[in-house]
Structures are given as structure tokens and as C-alpha cells.
């Protein structure tokens, strides 16, 4: 009984472990022939690098036919042979497996199975299925074909850092996009934006790429109404403040895109304090004037004044702290306090989105009090530094007098 159990158990284990390897070793005449007749960069040469091949999914699983046959005419006659799909057929072709939750569970249970449904709601899908526009992107336009990589792998076309380039392949090509009459400078703008620099220069994979705002399989431009929700996915606090502010209704009434009105879309630059206020290049004055009947002008002036005051006090505190540090004084506690000032400054700047001085000014005051503490303590450390030197001078003087006295006594003894 025990022996039989072990025989079955070990056979099962062996089969589980070796199945992909056995399959890989199975006769695959598709690859054998196609590698002979294709160029070095042909599909058959690329395919061994493909995630499907690596997971044990071979040519016949997609294209049908029989890999044991070595005659193409015979292969074409095999029942279920599908050959290469047309551009229009590709989404359904891939969805045979990728929309089948039961099938996908056996290969990659964490992968969603709603790609086709989402694709149908995208601009790409609508044009492909609705207008039979075969220029729009289908699955292989973004994922490539025969060398599809896991999105977690840096060589994959859907790896976060490669996504701008993948989308830009079409969207930055002005001649390709000419029939659609939409801009083609998104990639250029994105690359220069704060998001693009974070992703492409700092290699911060948490920074948004195209799909973070537009979606991937359901890619479409976010509408005016949904813009703050899209940005708010990451900038949640700013979005909450904005939605509770008077701007929310005013923007909706005038059909202004929410975040984009001040921050633009693809070319979002690192915001500076100069964007707030009433004098150029401040943006508030684009809509508000001192006699427009709203509080906007006063709020803009008040917000900027509070921020600038805090920035100025922080700079003085920082300068004194640096001086104390350079003099060799222990400044660890003051450095921690200055970090709290930095946090208050960030929060004050964020509160600009509330357009409410009763919220912004107390936070700025909190930061000011801490900056002043750092100033006082740093100045105290600098005083201590000079006090130490005076003390040293006095001590040295006494020791030197004692030494001279001793020396004179020694001379006298001689």
C-alpha cells in the first residue's frame, strides 16, 4: 500500500515538474521549418523569448494545426487551423484564451480577463470594431507579437518605463496620426513633464505613465468631469480640497477641465509658488481681478503672502542651522525640527487647493512657529560656539600663567 502510494506520488510529482520541459522537447516542426525559412528577426526566431513559449504555450495553441506535420499544405488541412489573424481579428484571437477565466487560472490566475471588454470601450476598440479602422492599435500594437514579455520585465514593451515609447510609436508619429486630427506632441510634452522626468530620468516606477491616466486596454482621454478623479488617484488630498472648494462648481459651470486648467495635462511641470498670486506668472489673475465680485483675488494674495513668509523664515532658519553645523555644533534636533517646517510648508502649499485662508493660514503659522524655534536654537548654538572659544582662551591663559610660573621656579632652582 505504502509502496503504491509513493509510486503514484512520485510519478505525479515528476509529471508536474517535467510537463513544460517535455512539451518543449516535443516535436515542433513549426519552429524547425519557420526558423529555416525566416530572417533572423522573424517570428520563429523571436518566439522562444516570448512569455507564452516560456509558459508552455506553443504555435499550434494559437494558430491551430499540427506541429508534428512537416508539410504546410497538410497543416492547413488540419481541423481548427487558424493561421495568422488579420488586424481586425487580433483582439478576438487573443481573447480566446485571455477572456477565458478558467483557462487563464491555469496559467496566470492574477491576470484580469476583461481586456477585450475594456478594449471595446476604448477609442481604439470603437474605431476598430465600429469603423473597421485597421490603423488603430490592437493587442499586438502594444504588446508586440511573438516576443511578448511580462509587464514586470524591463525588456517588455509594457514595462512602465517603456510605455511612453510604446504609445508614442503611433501617437508621436504626425504622418501616421494625420487622419485623426489630434496633437502628436504628447510624448514630447510628457518627457519634459514632472511625471516624465520622474519615470524616465529618476526611474521611479511609481510615477505615472500614459496608461495611469488614460487606462490601458480601455484607453481614452479622461473627460472634463472625470479629470479630478483621475488625478486624485494619486493626488488624493489635493483632489478632496479642490472638490470642497468654490472652484469645483465654478469650473463645472464653465466647463473648465479641473486640474488641467492650472496644471495643463501632458506638460505638467513642477508647481512653483509663482503660480499662486495676482501678478504674472501667477495663474489666479487669468480669471480673477480685484473687482470681479469674488474673494478669489484676495485669497490668491493672502495665500501667496503666507507661503512666502514661511519660505523666508525657513530660509533664515536653515542658514543659521547650517552655520551652527559648520561650526561643529551638534544640530540633530534642530535638523529634525526643520524637517517639520518642510512638512508644514508642503501642507500649506497643498491647502492652496482649498481656496480657504482660514485653513491655509493656521498651517502656515504652525510652520512659522517651528521655523522661529529653529532660528532661536541655532542662534543659541552659534553663541555657544563663541562662548566655548572665550572659555578656552581663559583656560589657556591660566594654564600658561601656571606653566610660566613653574618655569621660573625651575630656573630659580638651577
Amino acid at each position: 500500500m505504502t509502496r503504491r502510494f509513493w509510486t503514484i506520488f512520485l510519478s505525479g510529482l515528476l509529471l508536474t515538474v517535467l510537463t513544460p520541459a517535455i512539451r518543449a522537447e516535443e516535436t515542433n516542426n513549426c519552429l524547425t521549418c519557420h526558423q529555416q525559412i525566416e530572417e533572423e528577426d522573424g517570428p520563429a526566431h523571436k518566439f522562444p523569448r516570448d512569455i507564452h513559449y516560456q509558459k508552455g504555450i506553443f504555435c499550434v495553441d494559437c494558430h491551430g494545426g499540427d506541429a508534428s506535420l512537416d508539410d504546410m499544405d497538410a497543416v492547413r488541412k488540419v481541423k481548427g487551423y487558424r493561421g495568422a489573424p488579420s488586424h481586425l481579428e487580433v483582439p478576438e484571437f487573443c481573447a480566446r484564451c485571455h477572456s477565458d477565466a478558467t483557462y487563464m487560472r491555469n496559467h496566470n490566475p492574477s491576470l484580469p480577463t476583461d481586456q477585450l471588454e475594456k478594449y471595446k470601450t476604448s477609442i481604439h476598440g470603437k474605431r476598430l470594431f465600429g469603423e473597421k479602422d485597421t490603423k488603430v492599435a490592437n493587442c499586438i500594437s502594444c504588446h508586440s507579437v511573438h516576443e511578448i514579455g511580462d509587464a514586470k520585465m524591463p525588456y517588455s514593451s509594457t514595462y512602465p518605463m517603456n510605455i511612453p515609447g510604446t504609445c508614442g510609436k503611433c501617437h508621436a508619429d504626425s504622418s501616421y496620426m494625420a487622419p485623426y486630427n489630434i496633437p502628436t506632441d504628447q510624448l514630447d510634452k510628457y518627457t519634459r513633464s514632472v511625471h516624465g522626468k520622474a519615470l524616465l530620468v529618476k526611474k521611479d516606477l511609481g510615477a505615472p505613465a500614459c496608461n495611469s491616466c488614460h487606462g490601458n486596454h480601455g484607453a481614452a482621454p479622461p473627460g472634463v468631469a472625470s479629470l479630478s478623479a483621475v488625478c486624485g488617484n494619486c493626488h488624493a488630498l489635493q483632489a478632496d480640497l479642490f472638490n470642497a472648494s468654490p472652484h469645483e462648481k465654478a469650473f463645472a459651470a464653465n466647463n473648465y477641465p479641473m486640474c488641467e486648467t492650472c496644471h495643463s495635462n501632458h506638460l505638467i511641470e513642477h508647481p512653483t509658488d509663482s503660480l499662486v498670486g495676482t501678478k504674472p506668472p501667477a495663474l489666479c489673475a487669468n480669471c480673477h481681478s480685484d473687482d470681479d465680485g469674488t474673494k478669489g483675488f484676495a485669497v490668491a494674495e493672502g495665500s501667496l503672502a503666507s507661503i512666502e513668509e514661511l519660505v523666508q523664515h525657513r530660509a533664515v532658519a536653515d542658514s543659521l542651522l547650517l552655520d551652527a553645523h559648520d561650526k561643529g555644533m551638534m544640530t540633530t534636533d534642530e535638523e529634525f525640527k526643520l524637517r517639520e517646517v518642510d512638512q508644514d510648508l508642503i501642507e500649506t502649499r497643498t491647502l492652496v487647493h482649498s481656496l480657504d485662508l482660514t485653513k491655509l493660514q493656521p498651517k502656515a503659522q504652525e510652520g512659522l512657529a517651528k521655523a522661529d524655534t529653529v532660528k532661536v536654537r541655532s542662534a543659541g548654538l552659534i553663541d555657544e560656539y563663541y562662548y566655548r572659544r572665550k572659555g578656552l582662551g581663559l583656560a589657556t591663559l591660566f594654564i600658561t600663567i601656571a606653566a610660566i610660573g613653574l618655569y621660573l621656579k625651575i630656573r630659580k632652582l638651577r
Partner: protein
Amino acid sequence: MAESTSRSSGAIKRAYRWVDRRFQIQALVDYMSHKVVPVQKFSIWYYFGGITLFLFIVQVVTGILLLMYYRPGADSAYESVRFIVAEVSFGWLIRALHSWSANLMIFAAFIHMFSVYFENAYRKPRELTWLSGIALLALALTFGFSGYLLPWNELSFFATRVGTGMAGAVPFLGKYLLVIMRGGEEVTGATIERFFGLHVAILPALFTVVLSAHLIFIQRQGMSEPLEWKEKPSGEKKYMKFFPHFLMRDLLVWLIVLNILAVLAVFFPDGIGVVHWPLGVKADPFSPPPPVIRPEWYFMFAFQALKFLPAHIFSIEGELVGISVFTIGGLIWAFVPFINRKSRIDEPSKLFMYFGMFVILFIIVMTILGYLL
């Protein structure tokens, strides 16, 4: 004025007689007043023993003051040193004086040792004085090694890990030695607590005993006379009375050293150049080690020499060969009064002179390379 002075000196004399009647200290004073110190062209080296002693006294005083606020332990050591430096009045000065005097003491001890070596002052009858001096240097180095970890900052943590790791290379006993030193397999809070015990209890007790023996030996035997005085007629030999002449000169040197120490402590409280002890960041055993881990400057020559050795020498582990060579070299150095036969008959030995010069050159070159490479 003159009357009050004579009245106070009369009181001192009466007090002295009161003590003398009970403890017979006059015999000791008579002995001290007869003691003499040779006056020669190398007399300056005689003062380095006294300088080392003075710096040790500074160590004891500042160490006791630090002890009032220092709290050993992985969760409290760093915080308490930070508190001493940032919050305690003159805490920064005490720590700076302690660290500077520790480094200067070892430097002075090295000079003292080499001056004794090159003057053959270890020769009969001063063999035990030399041996006790070597023991004191070894204890001082252990003081330095154990004290280095106590602030529990990043540098000290990783340097101690490397240092104790070297002890692990000792044949047969290495593994046990490492566990005993660290209080476990790794440098942890247990290590800091046993290093603390070593630094403030065991070493001071041992040091006091050996130092007392060393000083008693010196007082009993006096300063060694130069070898060339053997042929000199008695009339040509010059001496100075130990009390008060030499003692006052000693005090003058101490005052100068105190002044230098004060200036260094105030201007460079965290040390300077390769001799530095910034508190920096707290030790984190899980953080990657800093790119450069260096031991204290007085261990650098050995550290660098071991780094130069190949992984294996004749199929024996390179580090093991290095440690063995250092052990043998150290034993030769310690027992030189018994090995150098010429010194026993008051004759200079060229072989030992060259050996000493080689040791100095080796230490200097290896130390420089240690900081350059």
C-alpha cells in the same frame, strides 16, 4: 604679611609632624630626595612616560564624568551619547577630552616604548618594568577597542564587527573567542554591554594593578642610564634630583600637554583627519556597511598588513598566517630583555637596533598605505 606666612607654614609643619608620627613618612621623603635622574642628550624621552600617565589620569577623570550619563545597551547607548554631547553642560567637552586624551595617550605610550627600546633601557635589572609596560600598552589598546563601540554608531558597529571577526580567525579557539567577545554570533546589544563592563570595570582594575607595579618598579630602580655611560668616569656623569627638579619639569610638561588637549578638544571636538569620532548615525545591523570601514589609527598597520596577504599561503589561510606572525613578533618584542643577550652585559646590539627600526618603518608604512589605499 610675613607674620601670617610664617604662621601658615608653622601650621603645615605641625600637620606634617602629626602625620609623620603616625605613618613615618619622613623615611619615604628621605628616599625620594636622594633619588636622581640622569641628565643626557636624550633626557627628553624620559618625559613621555609621565605624559602617558598624565593622559591616563585625564582618561579616568573624564571617563567617570561620562559614566554619569552614559547608558549601555542597543536602545540607549547612542541616545545617551547624543544627550551628553547636545544637552549636558560641557558634555561635549568631556567627550572630546576623553577621546583626544585616549588617542594621545596611546601615541605617547608608543613613543615611550620605542624610546625605552632604542636606549636599551629594558636591560637588566629592568626586565619586569619593560614587561609591565608592554602589558599596559596591550591593556590600553584593549581600552581603545572596547571604547570605540560604546557610542553604538554606524562606524563603530561595523569596525567592531570587522575587528571581532579577525579574532575569529585564531586557530582552534577563534570561534569560541568570537562568541565570547560578541556575546553571541553577531555584534548586538549583548556585545555593547560586555564591552562596557570590560571598559569601565575589568580593564581599569587590571590597569591599576599593572600601572602600580610599573610605577613602583621605576621608583625602586630609578631611570636607566645610557649605555655609553658604562665607560664614563663618575665625575663626568650628570644627574638631576627627582624631587623637586625632575618632578617640576614633569609638571611643566603636563601643563603644556593640558593646554594642547584643551585647544584640540575645543577646536576639534569630533577629532580631525584620520583621528575622528563623529557621532554620526545610530548603528543599524540591517543597513549595508559604509563603503570604507577603518579601525582606529593604532590598529591600521595590522589591518592593512592582513589585507595585503593572499587568501592562502601554502594552503594555510592567509589571515591565520598573518595573525600568527603578529603573535610571534609581539612575543619577541615583549621578551626582548631576555632574548637580547648583549643587553644583559650592557652592550648595544645592532641586530635588535635594526629589528626596532624595521618595526617602526613597518608600522608607519602600513598605516600610511592603510589610509591611502
